[in-house]
Structure formats: C-alpha cells, structure tokens
C-alpha cells in the first residue's frame, strides 16, 4: 500500500473543522515560540477538474493535515492551478516563502521545466510527481506504474474471458501516459490470439466524451464481451451507455485508477464491473511524506539509504478478493 493514511478514518464534519482551527492555532503557537528548526514545504497540483485530480487535492490536504500533526516543525501550503501557466505562478509565489521543499505534480512538464529548475538550483528539495521532466531537476521522482496498469488490466481480462472474446478499449488523450498504458495492454494481448480488439478510441478521459464514444462503439459492434477503460471516470460513463443500450452481451468491464466509486461497485459484487487497477492519486501524499523525510535528511523505515531518487508505485489489480484493502469511503477518488 502506497498510502500513508495509517491512523484511521476521518469524518468530514464540524469536528474536523474545529480540529483544523485548533491545529492552526497550535502551529502558530509553535511558530512563535519554537527554537527548533522550522521547515516550509509547498505543494502544487493541477486543479480538481477531473475525478483523479479531485482525489489529488483531497489527498494533498489529508496528508498535510496528518503530517503537520506528526511533524510540528513543518509548515505546509497547498496550492492548485487550472493551467500550466497558472502553476508557474504558483511555484514563483511559493518560492517567495523561503521554501525548504517543493512537491509538484506538473500540469504539463515542459511548461513547468524552467521554474522547477529554478527552484531546484536554488537548493529547494524538489519532489516531482507523476509527470517526468525532460531535463531532470529534482531530488525525487515518484509516479504510478502506467505500463503496469495496462498489463494488469490485460492479464485480468484475458484470464476472465478464458483467452477468447471481443473487447473494446477506451483510451485517454494522445499523451505519453496513455500510450504507455495502451501499448502495455496490447503487448500482453498479443499472447492471446483468441482475443480480438474491435476498437481502441480516445475518450480524453472525460466522462461526457466517454459516454458518446461508447454509444458509437456499441452501435457499430453488436458482439462485445469486455470493455477496458484506462480510467475509472470513463468506466462509469461507459457503464451508463451499456445500461441505456441494454447490452447484456458484455460480461466484463475493467477500469484504471482505482476510484472509490468503482471500488464501491466491486465491493457490492457488481455484475459486470469486476476489476480495476490502481494508479493512486494518493501518490501526492507519499510524495509529501518523502519531502518531509528528505528535507530532514531522514531514512525511510529500516532502509540503509536516504530517500531514493526514483520511486514507482505498484499498479495493483483490485478485485472482489482484495477490495477491502483499498476502500477509503471519505476519499474524493
């Protein structure tokens, strides 16, 4: 489990708000009296305009609250940006606060390259998440396993179908992350000559787009056994299209990402939604934790070395067998 969320479930209530303010007051108190070393960590992520990015914001907030309790000498600021240019301004503004560490999931890497390099060269401990820079400018790079996501999904579908059947693939936009997932998926499927990929289409990982693409694909393909959606929001939209068209030929729908909505479906034994593969937005939480340990020069657990420079989180297949492990009812994704 890549999740730092160890000390149980929190409820989004007034109690939480009170805790927050109490914590804020406590922090201010320590800021005034502390003689111990103070660290400032800035976090910036893309704005919550999609299920996955909403999860990202939620996990960033969650992790900073939990870590601030465990590490009273660390201050956190979390910002989000609705474009790469806005995120450049985020980083510039964060750097003004004498940052010790920067945790960033770049909206788009080339746009952010210059400003991340500036931060890194100034000696700010830099953790880049999910989207790799062309010219490395970071202490740590942490990401999910995109090829692994495609592989796991392909193996599961092939096994569930017994190596025989027609499938549709709902892809993401033409960006490297998507091609890594889809290429790995197709590589595995090459070993199963009985599996026939009828179509592989771009949905932009957008629910509305996914709905109309799936409708079109279902219309032109009367015999479909399984659908793989490289993203869980897309899966939910595809499911709607399947239900509206009364397509009972489809036996299996597999997603990607690991959203709570899909996990909930798997948990309640959904007739066709039986699996998804993790690509956890909680990676931002681990990234923030890495920044805390990195900036303090601490080791992780029993490791004999400091924080590693690259970290790839496993892509885990979630099915009815292990779904409880991934159930996090409060999470936004």
């Amino acid at each position: 489990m890549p999740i730092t969320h160890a000390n149980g479930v929190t409820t989004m209530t007034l109690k939480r708000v009170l805790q927050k303010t109490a914590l804020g007051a406590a922090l201010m108190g320590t800021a005034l009296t502390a003689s111990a070393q103070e660290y400032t960590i800035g976090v910036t992520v893309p704005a919550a305009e999609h299920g996955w990015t909403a999860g990202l914001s939620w996990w960033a907030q969650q992790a900073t609250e939990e870590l601030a309790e465990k590490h009273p000498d660390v201050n956190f600021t979390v910002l989000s940006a609705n474009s790469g240019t806005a995120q450049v301004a985020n980083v510039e503004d964060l750097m003004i606060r004498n940052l010790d560490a920067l945790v960033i999931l770049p909206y788009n890497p080339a746009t952010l390259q210059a400003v991340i390099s500036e931060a890194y060269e100034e000696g700010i401990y830099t953790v880049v998440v999910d989207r790799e820079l062309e010219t490395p400018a970071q202490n740590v790079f942490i990401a999910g396993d995109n090829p692994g996501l495609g592989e796991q999904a392909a193996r599961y579908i092939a096994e569930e179908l017994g190596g025989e059947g027609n499938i549709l693939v709902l892809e993401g936009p033409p960006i490297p992350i998507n091609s890594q997932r889809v290429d790995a998926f197709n590589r595995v499927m090459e070993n199963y000559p009985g599996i026939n990929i009828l179509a592989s289409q771009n949905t932009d990982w957008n629910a509305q787009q996914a709905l109309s693409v799936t409708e079109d694909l279902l219309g032109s393909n009367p015999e479909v056994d399984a659908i793989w959606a490289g993203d869980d929001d897309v899966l939910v939209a595809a499911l709607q299209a399947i239900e509206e068209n009364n397509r009972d030929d489809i036996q299996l729908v597999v997603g990607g990402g690991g959203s709570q909505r899909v996990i909930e479906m798997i948990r309640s034994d959904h007739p066709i939604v039986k699996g998804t593969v993790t690509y956890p937005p909680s990676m931002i939480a681990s990234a923030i934790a890495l920044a805390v340990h990195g900036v303090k020069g601490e080791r992780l657990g029993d490791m004999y070395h400091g924080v590693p420079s690259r970290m790839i989180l496993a892509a885990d297949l979630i099915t009815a067998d292990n779904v409880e492990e991934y159930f996090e009812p409060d999470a936004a994704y």
Partner: protein
Amino acid sequence: MSPLSQRTTPLAQRFRNLPISGAILAPLLALIVLFVISSLASEYFLNTRNLSNVLRQVSYTGIIAIGMTFVIIAGGIDLSVGSMLALVGVVVLYVLNTITDPFQAVILAMLAALVGGALLGLFNGLLVTRGRIAAFVVTLATMSIFRSLALYFTDAAEVSTRNPLFQGVGGGFVLGLPIPVWTFFALAVVSHVVLFHTAYGRHVCAVGANAQVARYSGIRVERVVLSTFLIAGVCVGLSAIMLTSRLNSVSPSDAGYFFELDAIAAVVIGGTALSGGRGTVWGTVIGALILGIINNMLNLTGVSPYLQGLVKGAVILLAVLLQYKRAP
C-alpha cells in the same frame, strides 16, 4: 451610448466630463486598498522579488488586455486571444527549432510572432467587417479554430527549445525589472498616446460610441474596426514572445488558457465600458494589476484552492459595482 447619455443625471455627466485621471479613480482606489490589504495579509507580499514576480505574472495577460482595450472601445470583443497565443506560440517554437543560428532564430521567431499575430488579428477583423458577422461570434469560432490548429500542428504535445538565447528574452531582467514588465509598461504608454492624443484614437472612441454617427462624420468605420483587431493580434504576438521565452516552451492545450477572460476582466475592472465608446489604457493596466495581486495574495496566504475562484470573482464584481453605481 447616445440614447443612454440623454437620460444621464447631471452627476453622471460630471463624472464623464472629468479628465482621464478621473475615469481611473475608482479602479486606482481599489488597487491601493488591495495593495494595503495584501501587505498586511502576508509578510512576504512587499518582498521585492515577490513584487517583480507579480508584475511579470501580470504582464502576459496585461499586454493582451491592452490590445483588448482597443477592440472593446471600438465596440467589439475578441474571445480568440488565448487560443491565438497558443497558435502563435507554436509558430514561434517552430521557427526557433528550424533555424540553426541561435541569434537569427530568436530574431526571426520574434518577427514571426508579431507578423503571425497581426495576420490572425486581421483574419478576425476581416470576418467582422467584410463578413458582417458579430465580433462575439467570429472570435468564438476562431477561438476554437486557433486552438485546434495549435493542437494539430504539435499532435497536442508540448514543444520546447534548446536555443540558448531565447529564454533571456522573457526570463531576463533590465534595471532590476523583468523584460516582460518593461514591454507591458512601454506598450501601455504607446497605447495611451495613440488612443488619447491622435486622430486615430478619437476615431476608435467615436466608432465605439456610435458607429452610424461616426460614419456620417466621415470616419471609415470598417477600417477602424479592422485595425483594432490587428492591434489585438500584434499584442497577442508580443505576449506570446514573452510567455514562450519565459517558459522556453509552449503547450498547445494550455498556453493562453482562459487568457481571454482575464484580459476582458482587466479591461472591465479598469472602467472601460463593454458597450464601447469609452475607456482608458491605464484603467486596463490597473485592472490587470488588481487581478495579479489577488492571485498572488491568495497563493501567499494559502487560501484553500477551492475558494480562490470565489474570492477572485467577488473582487471583480466589487470593483465593477463601485464603478457602475453612478450610472443609472
């Protein structure tokens, strides 16, 4: 504006007759109040590096907002500026990466940006004047067309350059201020002079106030409208140079995203009437600064990212309410 101005109260009349400095009084006061609040809210706000950051962040949309001021005063609107910036940016990076001599490449890329912006602005302007289509509709369409072309030419991928000189343009400093900021202020001064101290500027205002009357007074209305879109295009080209060189790259899906809204907001906060006919360049500059300071202050104080849009929207409404309260 003419049927309205007949009904205006003497008080409003008096406001309208004030010299230019009076027209920007409300936005200027708003800016000062915001500045004071920001310096109290965050200890980092008055940090010189922060102030120069804010100015640089403002300059990209500010430059475009100045072009937009011409278009809006002449009674038009340009929604395509953000997409145009992306398309021009793609052209800039293409020129940079095609020409081997780094110095030549930078000069030609900058020229290409200005010419490219001018041509796209001309395209908008011709559709409005010759095609007789409303500016809102024309630029709504070209907003989609320009963005789509930028995505098509690059396969939606970001393009970056290894040109060693380019980053010095938008990332460089002169006399302690970033180059984009100098460009923004120089453009503001020139635009102010053109708009208020030349016959052309008076024609722009006259066309926006009442195109029919302007036509009867012998002003070539179509040509004036066309020229405002051309100016907006050149401003977009200038902004594209500054932004792409600062970032040393362009993202076709992201560059200029929502810039049209920020530019229009800056113009409106600055007191220019969306209905055309009157407005000031300095008001627009102040409007852009207000927007930039809000963004900066929210980031510095770490306001919840979910609430930032609300604060920004509220300040825009407040600034505009303060100005329009006097008009019945």
